[in-house]
């Protein structure tokens, strides 16, 4: 337990206990170092600031305190660093409590497990609304004119035409539904009934079965209106519940210190009644249960506000005559029923994730993005290849040529993984064709899982979602991805190879989220001081350099040659550079003494933005000198070089941003009130490495602070200007420390 304290102690150049008012501050003072003079003027329009030249750090005027570090770590974990909280922990640390203990404490925060971690692991997959799980064409409308209200999907009917139905949301009641919107006997659309040519089973509960994409009005809401939603409000509520299932399941795994892989391989999830109803309606669809009341017992009724309320006396009995226990309104951790062995695989088969991308190949790409942090980009498809491969026109919705794609040169780099991968999910067809599991489509045999390409088989397993999840989470790619999420969130591009190794070792040793996060936060505390020490100087202002013609080839200087040979030649020894589709299929040969200028331009672009070297990303400390070398090779004029350096080293990136909802929460706490206004923010869907402070982030957080502070002021809480200053402090916005003034 003393290890963390010792580590923190080692990085202190000053002594403990510098008195500052009544609080003992533990001052982290950076050693002064010589450096070039710095420009105080920020860049102006039409001018750019050249980057620091990397020679030596500037004098570190700033000192920072334990209090600031305590606050920064708390904010990262989603805890509000109130003055009282910070003061208490500073006192404890001064009194000998270890940093480890502090980190353990913050990692127990419910906001950490319920908000921070889900956004970190799933990004848009948990924070952005799903379109396909609940086809919007199945939201009912209601007549308002004569007679009793009638529910309808397509067009209203007369009172006499309306059919009486016990709706799932209140089985004890009766509502009228237009006949075309009911159709309790209809489960699928037969090929002779619709005008699609596909022989694929098309289920009534899908987008294609809904009024949105039907070719004829064949399907209705089904028995007890099971595949329909009462109104828009209920539709919104169910969508929120689907997102919450992923969040709360993640929270359960984190809070119970279960291995992270459980999140993807376990059967149980934490869900409310809305989601439980969704699973039961999937089962009803799969088994075509004509009388589903018993299946729905104990879940409702749902009040008019769409929130489920505890069932009243007289709730329908289950099949065995017993009245099941009511589903807790707040949800519960509970297993899911498998209609075939291996049907479920953690949150991979939770509707929010399962139906987030409809096409099976797209869905699989999403799984790899979440599990292995790969497949965010997909390059290399050429028009000729696609035209040659696809004789029938069926390459996406119906996957006629999947095996050919998986085995074709270049295509195999993605499609071996994708197309063999989605064979594990055969029971879940395209979400636009069905939203329920179809046991008859699930294979009973085994199949391979591939990594890099068709030559990189990783093992075989049962062709079920569970079989996939077991294989995928056993791969090093999974552990690396989970470690990377944490490293990226806490350390960002400051993470060194040593940090990465330490975090990965924690993942290997424990497999639990808190343990991995703890190591990262310990490293964050270390980096805190380094950040103060290493702050580079902003550079003098330069103008844009004029465009000038350059020679078509570039002679590679010796220093760059060394780096190219060390980092690139393993792959880049195949074919001479060419500017055609066919040539681009190969890794260009970097060995010649002189290389085409266009190739070297591409080289600086890929290295600077981290897409190369491909399989072994360079840490920032190694990448930047290499980028400088390539820039110096390409551009000799100082102004042109400065312009290029600003772009490739600065990348127009602001400081790493807090998760947007964390920042909004912190602003509300600082202002003592929230604005009460919703924010539809793109930032909610970002992966951590994309999350930097942008003008958009500043605008949203600034406006939230303004409205929250206005409310606070109007209620007599604070002065407006002081509140704004508090709410917009750098620590609220930035994950990374900003040196103290």
């Amino acid at each position, binding site marked *: 337990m003393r290890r963390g304290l010792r580590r923190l102690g080692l990085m202190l150049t000053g002594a403990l206990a510098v008195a500052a008012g009544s609080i003992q501050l533990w001052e982290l003072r950076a050693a002064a170092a010589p450096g070039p003079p710095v420009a105080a003027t*920020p*860049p102006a329009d*039409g001018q750019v600031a050249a980057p620091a030249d990397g020679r030596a750090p*500037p004098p570190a*005027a700033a000192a920072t305190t334990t209090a600031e570090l305590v606050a920064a770590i708390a904010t990262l974990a989603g805890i509000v660093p109130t003055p009282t909280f910070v003061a208490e922990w500073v006192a404890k640390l001064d009194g000998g409590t270890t940093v480890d203990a502090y980190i353990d404490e913050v990692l127990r925060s419910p906001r950490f497990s319920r908000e921070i971690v889900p956004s970190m692991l799933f990004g848009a997959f948990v924070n952005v*609304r799903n379109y396909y799980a609940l086809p919007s064409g199945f939201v009912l409308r209601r007549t308002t004119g004569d007679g009793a209200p009638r529910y309808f999907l397509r067009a209203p009917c007369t009172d006499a035409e309306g059919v009486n139905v016990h709706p799932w949301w209140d089985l004890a009641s009766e509502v009228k539904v237009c006949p075309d919107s009911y159709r309790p006997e209809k489960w699928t659309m037969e090929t002779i009934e619709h*005008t*699609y*040519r596909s022989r694929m089973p098309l289920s009534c509960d899908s987008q294609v079965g809904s009024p949105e994409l039907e070719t004829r009005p064949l399907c209705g809401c089904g028995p007890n209106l099971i595949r329909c939603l009462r109104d828009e409000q209920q539709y919104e509520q169910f969508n929120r519940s689907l997102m919450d299932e992923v969040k709360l399941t993640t929270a359960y795994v984190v809070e119970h210190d279960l291995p992270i892989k459980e999140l993807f391989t376990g059967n149980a999830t934490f869900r409310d009644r809305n989601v439980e109803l969704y699973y039961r309606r999937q089962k009803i669809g799969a088994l075509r249960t004509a009388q589903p009341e018993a299946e729905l017992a104990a879940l409702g009724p749902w009040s008019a506000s769409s929130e489920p309320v505890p069932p009243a006396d007289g709730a329908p009995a289950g099949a065995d005559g017993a009245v099941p226990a009511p589903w807790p309104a707040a949800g519960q951790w509970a297993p899911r029923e498998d209609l075939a062995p291996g049907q479920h695989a953690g949150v991979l088969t939770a509707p929010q994730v399962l139906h987030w991308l409809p096409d099976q190949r797209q869905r699989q790409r999403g799984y790899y993005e979440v599990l292995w942090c790969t497949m*965010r*980009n997909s*390059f290399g*498809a*050429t*028009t000729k290849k*696609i*035209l040659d491969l*696809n004789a*029938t*026109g*069926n*390459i*996406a*919705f*119906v996957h006629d040529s999947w095996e050919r794609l998986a085995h074709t040169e270049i295509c195999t780099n993605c499609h071996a993984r994708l197309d063999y991968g989605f064979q594990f999910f055969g029971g879940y067809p395209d979400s636009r064709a069905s939203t329920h599991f179809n046991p008859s489509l699930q294979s009973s045999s085994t199949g391979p899982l591939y990594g890099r390409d068709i030559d990189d088989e990783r093992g075989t397993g049962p062709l079920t979602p569970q079989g996939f999840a077991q294989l995928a989470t056993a791969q090093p790619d999974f552990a690396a991805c989970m470690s990377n999420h944490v490293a990226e969130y806490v350390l960002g591009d400051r993470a060194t190879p040593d940090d990465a190794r330490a975090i990965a070792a924690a993942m290997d040793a424990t497999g639990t989220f808190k343990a991995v996060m703890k190591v990262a936060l310990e490293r964050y505390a270390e980096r805190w001081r380094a950040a103060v020490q290493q702050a580079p*100087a902003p550079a003098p202002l330069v103008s*844009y*350099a*004029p*465009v000038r013609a*350059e020679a078509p080839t570039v002679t590679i200087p010796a220093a760059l040659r060394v780096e190219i040979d060390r980092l690139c030649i393993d792959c880049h020894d195949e074919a001479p550079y060419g*500017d055609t589709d066919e040539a681009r299929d190969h890794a260009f040969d970097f060995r010649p003494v002189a290389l085409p200028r266009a190739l070297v331009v*591409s080289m600086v672009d890929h290295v600077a933005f*981290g*897409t190369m070297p491909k399989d072994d990303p360079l840490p920032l400390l190694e990448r930047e000198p290499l980028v400088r070398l390539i820039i110096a090779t390409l551009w000799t004029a100082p102004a042109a070089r400065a*312009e290029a350096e600003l772009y490739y080293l*600065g*990348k*127009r*990136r*602001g400081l*790493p941003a807090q998760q947007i909802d964390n920042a909004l929460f912190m602003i509300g706490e600082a202002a003592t009130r929230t604005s009460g206004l*919703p*924010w*539809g*923010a*793109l930032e909610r*869907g*970002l992966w951590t490495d*994309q999350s930097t402070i*942008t*003008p958009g982030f500043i605008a949203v957080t*600034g406006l939230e602070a*303004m409205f929250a502070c*206005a409310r606070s002021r109007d209620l007599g809480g604070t002065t*407006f200007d002081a509140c*704004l200053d508090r709410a917009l402090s750098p620590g609220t916005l930035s994950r990374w420390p*900003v*040196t103290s*003034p």
Partner: protein
Amino acid sequence: MRSRRDVLKVALSTGGWLAAAALGCHKRRATQVAAPPRYWVMILLSGGHDTLYTTDPKTAAEVDSIVTLPADNRSVTVGDLRLGAQFAGLSKWASKLSTLNGVQVHTANHDTGQKQFLHLKTNIGDNMPSALDIIAARREGQPLGVTYLNLSARVMHSPAYFGTADRFYFGEGDVFSRVSDAQPGELAALAKAMRTQATALGRAGATMQAAQTAVYMRETAEFFERVSSIPPLVPEQRSVDYVAQSMSETLERTLWLIENDLTCGVVLDLGLLGWDTHIRNESKQVEMNGNFASYFDDFMAELHARKNGHGVLGERTVVVVGSELGRFPRQNDMLGKDHLPQTSFLFSGPGIRAGRTFGVTGPRMEGLPIDYRDGHPAAAGRVPLLDDVGATLLRLGGLDPERYGYAGRACEFLLDRTS
């Protein structure tokens, strides 16, 4: 047959124009030639428009049997510009539009394609500044660099992002609606607080990231200060259909931003992937392209009618319309069309040679090589690549594309050398 003199003339005039642009000669020459672009608008027809309906109509005689043609297969030709049935309504703008067909994008994946669209470059990574971010960095006077409107996917986020996300996916509440509800005095106080923060962040010793954050804070503060004195936009209700209405509103918002000189660039994500017609291509392409053409027609009319202190908007605004990928030419079993890593673009504005259809496609709709000097078909030429469009736009913006990683070949044929 082109003479050597013709080639030289092209080279000299293009080079001269580019050199002038790069040397910042726009202002001095403003009385003699068209003013350089001040605003840049990129419109994404999200999902992938079927070029047979829009910019590359074909007759049955021109294509192989695998190509499924539109039911309404008429085309409109005005001069050298040929448009499909769904874009026929845009023919009135023929003197201001050009199209480029057969552009290779090297991906059949929406996410990658949408990212590439923003960068006008293939094989890109996350976190790169977009093409307009790069161009807008040298803007003159507008507080915002680029405003991104109605984005439906996180992949289109940029390090310089400012804008709105689609409210169906991301929820209600965006910066423009909130600003319109704010008190001017409170916005001014917010701007002041931001400037104070920016000063602290950008002081001596700050990292590049902190300095960049300070720049963004000042830009945003300036936006708040300016917008507090501008009447808010009240969008017109044009359709009860969510996607169509958001298309119309987003184009209106673009005009409002430009007219009030609030931004240099605007990126619009239209259609919520509505052009991704794997199911029922015919009806969806007709609907999406029809709606777009109607609203875009209005947009062009307003662009050429409205003025601000920098002139008629249409004379200062470059407009680029395209998709992240295209549609496979043959209909699938769901009566839809799957993906093709090829698309087309529509261009308008100062510096663009208007009134022409550039780029040719073959009987299977495959892009064919063209001569990069005049845009005519040429066996020894080059099939247009997305990177070439990016290099062209950066050149039009007076920048050296190479310095920003654009190794494509500029489409000289697209540039109006008389500007």
